[in-house]
């Protein structure tokens, strides 16, 4: 089994969907989480507060500089993620498709480095 990050990207400044739709997405994500857990592919997952709550820390030679985040000045920011275990990319993509359907956002799939990789 390999591990994959399924990252949910949010576009900042997009109009907030109606409350009903948000509740529906929460429910769908809960159901998706339960499905990943039941299938034995679950590693970890979490939703994040918006990028305005982020802080960036840089430490070099003992000098610590702390700045108001986020790190990347782009409109697309990480909104939440899953870490799943899957036998190959096709299996990970299949989970990502279900996750995307549930949360209503595009999902980026990234493989974790494995021990022994260059």
């Amino acid at each position, binding site marked *: 089994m390999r591990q994959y990050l399924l990252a949910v990207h949010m576009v900042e400044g997009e109009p907030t969907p109606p409350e009903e739709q948000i509740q529906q997405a929460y429910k769908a994500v809960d159901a998706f989480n339960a499905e990943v857990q039941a299938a034995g592919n679950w590693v970890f997952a979490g939703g994040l507060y918006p990028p305005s709550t982020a802080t960036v820390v840089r430490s070099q030679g003992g000098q610590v500089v702390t700045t108001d985040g986020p790190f990347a000045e782009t409109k697309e920011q990480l909104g939440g993620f899953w870490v799943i275990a899957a*036998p190959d990319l*096709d299996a990970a993509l299949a989970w990502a498709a279900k996750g995307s359907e549930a949360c209503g956002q595009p999902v980026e799939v990234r493989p974790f480095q494995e021990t*022994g*990789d260059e």
Partner: protein
Amino acid sequence: MPGADAATVEQAYRESSGRAVATLVRLFGDIDLAEEAVQEAFVVATERWPATGVPPNPGGWIVTTARNKAVDRLRRESSRFGREAQATLMNADAEPPEEVGPVPDDRLRLIFTCCHPALAAEAQLALTLRLIAGLQTAEIARAFLVPEATVAQRLVRAKRKIRAAGIPYRVPRDEELPGRLPFALAVVYLIFNEGYTASAGDNLVRSGLCAEAIRLARLLAALMPDEPEVRGLLALLLLTDARRPARTGPGGSLVLLADQGRGRWDRALVAEGQQLVRACLRLGRPGPYQLQAAISAVHSDAPAAADTDWGQILALYDQLIAVMPTPVVALNRCVAVAEVHGPARALELTGGLDLDGYHLYHSTRADLLRRLGRRDDARAAYDAAIARATNGAEASFLRRQRDRL
């Protein structure tokens, strides 16, 4: 049969490298290792075959030699690669030594790895040509008129992604196949089209790419005989390629279908293509490639352009646009509409198409305007087409059409 010359070794390479690489990828699970081992085996062949002659089963010889080379290398490097390499070695050793017969499934698996939608389209093309067709990086670069370093980088990145992301090396399951097969077919079709009308440069055709695409389509058709779209694609390529000798005039200039000397069409390719079209349409699962092939087959049926059964072609376009509702298909349908219902009706239909950047949109409109006697409008449309044409032969054809107005 002693005295194999360089050309014979080269031909053996072309014919067996794809299969050998695919088999080694299955055995060792690593594309780079497989490629390098197959290259090494061919180096040995180049040294040995001129004296000993080509062995009775050159493909099998290459696979066995390459496998031994790969095992040697893994043994040498196993301390570096650690347990994983040891495990791979055990798997490879466990394989019976005589896995040298035709193992077409290996190539099919590798085609689906190369044409995985997680890879960029140009990477899919380069990987397929390199690993399945056995083209060198420099040959791919020449074929697509991009620097060799660019192709090399695409290949390195794609192979790294296959390994790092765990793109599997297997034929998609039945339920996945409808989603995945179109990517493999599209790659083969793109390779053919790039060969048939080069997107840049002055030569209209780079026939080497057409031949490779047909070889790949034949391979897919042999490996997946139950998929009508695969046979449809092969038929489409054969029927299109059959016209190649008639498609260019003196000096490499472009000759339109209606003006082609049909005696110069390759009758054997036409016959094979038509037979394939009939056979796959009988299965009753028409798809975009089969329908395009059927349209091409109707053209091939006509002894002269004036004999073309445009009614049937329009009916096929109606079916095609139902399964493939793209503006380009709609544009091509307009050409049939012009023959059946007249250029005025066709021109009206082109008005709603969002194809301003496409040179053939403007040249189609130019031709319709010319037939309607609107010379100034036709000239403006030809100018727009010329400005957007990237192939030199196509652009000079369009200039001649414009100047004849």
